[in-house]
């Protein structure tokens, strides 16, 4: 058996003599591998971002809403809109449950522009909640102070702003003590939250938090569209005591059914969402993505493989005399088989390596020009290698077998 390095050198030698042809042959493999690597690393990047994001929402928080955050299918907006809204009183009742540590009623409205002297912010969120908002949403106040119970009780016109609002409106100045005006009402800034960064290009720090009691003064009346009635009313964020997630869910359900007067034969008219459910739904979506990748990979690698098989058959035909000579001086069928198999594997691997490099570059490029972030993992590179080697072997074996089976004299007589 002659040694592997020499076989590789021999295989590379034949590519040097047919550079263009070899390149065209492996184009299919290059395209296949690079697409797969690019898409996989983007999905992986998305996975990491989403998982991190969902986790950073604050661990084990339960979201009590009128609509399901995880159920797919046509949202029955009208039915959801007709459901009774939650109130801050619901939140107070829930906060007294034994398994519950903290509860925050949360209401949110988009606001187009916020001005301070000559500076203005883009669209921001105005959030109405209570002193537990920072706890259930895993945020800390960086400077100034948080909301207090008395702010809520006295409907004080105070606000804690996200770091992006602070940067947009006040730049280097301290925002503490400054006043903003929304709908003719002045809001005094008492604190700034620590930065959370961006998620899918969307800043997580572009909001102002006010006491919900003041929020109701800001946006009074029932001028809500059906969509807002379904999705923009109070939701209640509940943080269970440590290790009490399941019993907290049971207690909240029990309490809410009672408060909403649901008899035992009626289904819930509210939803209890957890992070686990959000992660599950996300994973089931990306699963579809993975299946699509496998399909793309399979198709492009089969196309690439057929290209390799074709060129190897041509190569065997062209080199029939060479095969005859090698056999005449003592090459065994296995020697010839391995020689041609090596060629197709090296060919496919070159395609695979180029494809891996291209795929990584492609992913980096997409990351650079879009909010998506690519995360290339070692297993993807190994997968690219493994796939292309497998293609080389699978589609190389038939031509190699044909070469190996040639009779030496017939091969030598071949013109």
């Amino acid at each position, binding site marked *: *058996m*002659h040694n592997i390095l*020499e076989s590789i050198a021999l295989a590379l*030698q034949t590519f040097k*003599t047919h550079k263009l042809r070899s390149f065209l042959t492996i184009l299919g493999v290059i395209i296949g591998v690079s697409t797969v690597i690019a898409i996989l690393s983007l999905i992986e990047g998305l996975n990491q971002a989403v998982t991190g994001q969902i986790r950073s929402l604050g661990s084990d928080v339960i979201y009590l809403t009128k609509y399901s955050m995880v159920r797919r299918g046509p949202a029955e907006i009208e039915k959801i809109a007709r459901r009774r809204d939650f109130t801050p009183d619901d939140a107070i009742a829930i906060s007294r449950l034994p398994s519950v540590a903290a509860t925050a009623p949360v209401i949110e409205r988009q606001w187009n522009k916020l001005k301070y002297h000559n500076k203005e912010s883009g669209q921001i969120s105005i959030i109405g909640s209570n002193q537990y908002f920072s706890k259930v949403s895993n945020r800390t106040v960086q400077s100034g102070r948080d909301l207090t119970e008395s702010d809520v009780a006295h409907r004080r016109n105070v606000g804690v702003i996200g770091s992006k609002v602070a940067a947009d409106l006040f730049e280097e100045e301290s925002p503490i003590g400054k006043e903003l005006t929304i709908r003719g009402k002045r809001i005094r800034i008492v604190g700034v939250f620590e930065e959370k960064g961006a998620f899918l290009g969307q800043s997580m720090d572009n909001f102002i938090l006010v006491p919900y009691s003041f929020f109701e003064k800001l946006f009074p009346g029932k001028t809500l569209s059906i969509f807002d009635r379904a999705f923009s009313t109070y939701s209640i964020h509940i943080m269970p005591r440590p290790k009490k997630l399941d019993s907290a869910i049971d207690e909240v359900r029990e309490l809410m059914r009672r408060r909403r007067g649901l008899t035992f034969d009626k289904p819930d008219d509210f939803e209890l969402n957890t992070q686990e459910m959000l992660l599950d739904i996300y994973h089931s979506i990306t699963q579809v993505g993975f299946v699509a990748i496998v399909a793309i990979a399979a198709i492009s690698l089969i196309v690439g493989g057929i290209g390799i098989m074709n060129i190897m058959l041509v190569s065997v035909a062209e080199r029939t*005399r*060479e095969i*005859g*000579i*090698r*056999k*005449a*001086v*003592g*090459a*065994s*069928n*296995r*020697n010839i088989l391995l020689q041609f198999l090596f060629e197709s594997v090296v060919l496919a691997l070159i395609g695979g390596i180029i494809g891996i490099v291209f795929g990584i570059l492609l992913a980096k490029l997409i990351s650079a020009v879009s909010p998506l972030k690519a995360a290339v993992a070692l297993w993807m590179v190994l997968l690219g290698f493994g796939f292309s080697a497998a293609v080389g072997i699978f589609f190389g074996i038939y031509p190699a077998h044909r070469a190996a089976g040639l*009779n*030496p*004299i017939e091969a*030598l007589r071949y013109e």
Partner: protein
Amino acid sequence: MAEKTEKSVVCKGINIHKTYWRGKIEVHALQGVDIEIRRNEYISIMGASGSGKSTLIHILGCLDTPTRGEYYLEEKRVSEFSDDELARIRNQSIGFVFQEFNLLPRLSALENVALPLVYAGKKRIERIKKSRAILEKLGLGERIHHRPNELSGGECQRVAIARALINEPKIIFADEPTGNLDSKTGQEIMAIFDKLVEEGNTLVMVTHDPDIARSARRIIKLKDGRIGDA
């Protein structure tokens, strides 16, 4: 077993037939050839074109198999050998020289000569050393890095002979080795073969040329696939 006084039998063919099919027509290239070759013999096979000389020497050189009849190499039946064993015999026991040289065009003279050593599993350093030595012995010391298209016909044939000799075979076959050469170069090649026999090698050579055949110690004449009278 060979008697003490006689030289031992290297190979032996009994009633060898070879039939080719050209479409529906059968071509009987060999029709019952009996042949015995002993150590250090120098045999010349002659005959008209199409009489089956190449067919016979290919079978003797284990490059092809007879349709009927038995062929023994050192008392072993060749028909019983596996593909791997046949490859090893072609590699170790037989040296074959062709009329059209059959060198690999992309390899240098040295690499062509070393090719059988590759399949013999020899290390690179040993391959180079041995191949260089034998090329030098055949007067090609200055040409070892040339490719076949940079060599004359005579030089190519000497490279091919070096390749046939590299594994010190038990028997050397040559099918019209001077057929593609002018007469002067042909004589130089023949001188090499004569010397090989003097050194104790066994040689079977196909030739058209009665002058060349004369230097052989035994002449076998083929006619229509049979051994005819001398």
